[in-house]
C-alpha cells in the first residue's frame, strides 16, 4: 500500500463469551431433558403450560410452579424454509424451522423439521422428536436432533390458531 492511499477501515474481530445461569426452573427442565423427558411448568394463574419453562408466565406476571411432562410429539403451527446461510448456524441448506406446539404445552417453540420434502411441510402437520442416542444426552436442547412427520392426520388450523 502506498503512503498516499487513505486508511479507510481496519478489521477488528469481536468475540463474546459468557457464563449463563439458567435459573432454577430451566435447570429442572434441563435435568429432565438429560433423562429424555420434556418437563414444562404450569402458570398458577392462567393454567397455561410453558415448555421450555423460563420460570414465569409473562402474561400473568407470576412464577410458574408445578411441573408437568409434555409429549415429544406436537403440531406445526407455522414454519419457514430457510435458504440463506448464517455464520452461527451449522445446518445444510435449505432447512425447515417450525413453531411446534407440543401435546400438553400451550406455547409453541422453534424446532427443526427433517425427513420431509420441503414442499410437503404444512401448517397443522403432526411431528415427533428424533432423539440423539441416549449415550450422547446432556444438559442441552440438542438432545433432540430434529422433528419428523408422524404421518398422523393434520390438525385443523382452528384448533391452534391462537398459538402461532
Amino acid at each position, binding site marked *: 500500500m502506498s503512503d498516499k492511499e487513505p486508511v479507510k477501515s481496519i478489521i477488528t474481530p469481536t468475540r463474546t463469551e459468557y457464563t*449463563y445461569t439458567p435459573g432454577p426452573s430451566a435447570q429442572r427442565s434441563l435435568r429432565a431433558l438429560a433423562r429424555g423427558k420434556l418437563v414444562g411448568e404450569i402458570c398458577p394463574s392462567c393454567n397455561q403450560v410453558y415448555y421450555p419453562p423460563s420460570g414465569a408466565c409473562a402474561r400473568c406476571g407470576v412464577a410458574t410452579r408445578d411441573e408437568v411432562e409434555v409429549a415429544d410429539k406436537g403440531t406445526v403451527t407455522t414454519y419457514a424454509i430457510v435458504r440463506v446461510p448464517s455464520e452461527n448456524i451449522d445446518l445444510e441448506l435449505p432447512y425447515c424451522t417450525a413453531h411446534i406446539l407440543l401435546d400438553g404445552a400451550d406455547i409453541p417453540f422453534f424446532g427443526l423439521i427433517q425427513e420431509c420434502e420441503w414442499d410437503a411441510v404444512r401448517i397443522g402437520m403432526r411431528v415427533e422428536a428424533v432423539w440423539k442416542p441416549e449415550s450422547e444426552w446432556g444438559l442441552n436442547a440438542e438432545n433432540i436432533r430434529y422433528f419428523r412427520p408422524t404421518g398422523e392426520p393434520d390438525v385443523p388450523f382452528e384448533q391452534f390458531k391462537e398459538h402461532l
Partner: protein
Amino acid sequence: MPERCAVIGVGQTHHTAKRIDVSQAGLLREAALRALEDAGCQWSDIDAVVIGKAPDMFEGVMMPELFLAEALGCVGKPMFRVHTAGSVGGTTAIVASQLVKSGVHGRVLTVAYEKQSESNAMWALSIKIPFRQAIVAGAGGYFAPLIRGYMQRSKAPEDVGIRVALKDRQNALKNPYAHLKFPDIDFDQVANSPMLWDPIRYLETCPSSDGACALVIADEKHAAKAPKQPAWIQATAMRSEPTQFAGRDTVNPQASRDAADELWKKAEITNPREEIDCCEIYVPFSWFEPMWMESLRFAEEGSGWKMTYEGATALDGDLPVNMSGGVLSSNPIGASGMLRFAEAANQVRGEAGEHQVPGAKRALGHAYGGGSQFFSMWVVAQDPL
C-alpha cells in the same frame, strides 16, 4: 398544561450499502447538519441531544454515544441514548418530543443511525443461546413463520407480498435518499427473485444500509419562528410486550393494537382510514404492510391485504403507504424508525419532493422492533391539535 411541539427540521443521509468515506460520527453529523439547516438553527440553538441506534453488536462498538457526543455538539449539554431494537428511531424521536412537550427544553436535536457495513447484523441476530438449538437465521428467519401465519389466517392471495414490494420499490425511484433503486422493476422480477426465508423472497426483503436521520423538535415559541411549515406532533404512543408468553398473538400483537388505540384516541381520530392522509410504516418484509394495516385499525382483521390489492396504499391511492420506498428500500436499522417519522413529517410540511402526497395534512409515522414486541408511533399534522 403540556407544551405544543413540532418537527421544524429534517435531515437524512443518502442511504447506501457502505459509507466508507465517513466514520459513524461523520455519518451522524451529516444528517444532523442537514436537519439544523432545514430548521434554520445553529448548534448553539440546541438545548439537548437524543441519540438512538439498534444493538451495539450491529457495529461491534459498545456504547457509541460516548464518542459521538462531541460530533453532535452535546458537550456541556444533556445527552441521552435510547434503545428499543428496530423501533428505536421512532422511540428516540418520541423521547425527544417529550423533552419539549414537558417544557424541559425548547429545541432538541434527535439523531438515529446504523452503519451496518461495520459489522454483520445477521450474525449479531443469530446468536447461539445456551442450552438451545441454534436454528433461527436472523430477522428473516424469525419473521417468516409469522408471515406464513398471517397468510394462513387471512387467506390472502399469494402475490400480496410481491405487490407491496413492487409498489415500495417503485416509490423509492422518486426518493433521492433511497438505498435500493431498481429502475426497471416489475412484478415478475420480484416474483422470480429467490426465496430466502420461504415465504420471503429476496426482493421482498429490506437491505442492510449505512445511514442516519435527524430531526429538530421545537416548542411553540420556536416553531413559530421556523423558516418552513412545522409538522405538529399531535400524538405519540409506545408499547412493549414480552417476546414469548402463552397465548401471545405474534401475528397481530396486543402491544401493537394497544399503541394504535392510544394513538388514535390522543389524536382525537375515530376513523383512521378517513382522517389520516398517508403513512410511513415499518415494513422490513413486504407482508408486514397488510399485517400492520390491520393492527393499526386501517382495515378489519383478515382484510388488510385488500388495501394493497385495490391500490389504496399506492402513491395515488386513498391511503398512500411508504411513499419514500420504506424500509424495503433503505434500512439503516437504528435510523429506519426515525426515517418513518421524518418522512411523515415531511409529507405534512410539503417537503417530500417527488414522493409528496398532494395536500397531505395529517400523517402517521410508525416503527416496530425486537420480535414484534416494541411499538412506537406518532401522528404529525399541519396544525397543532
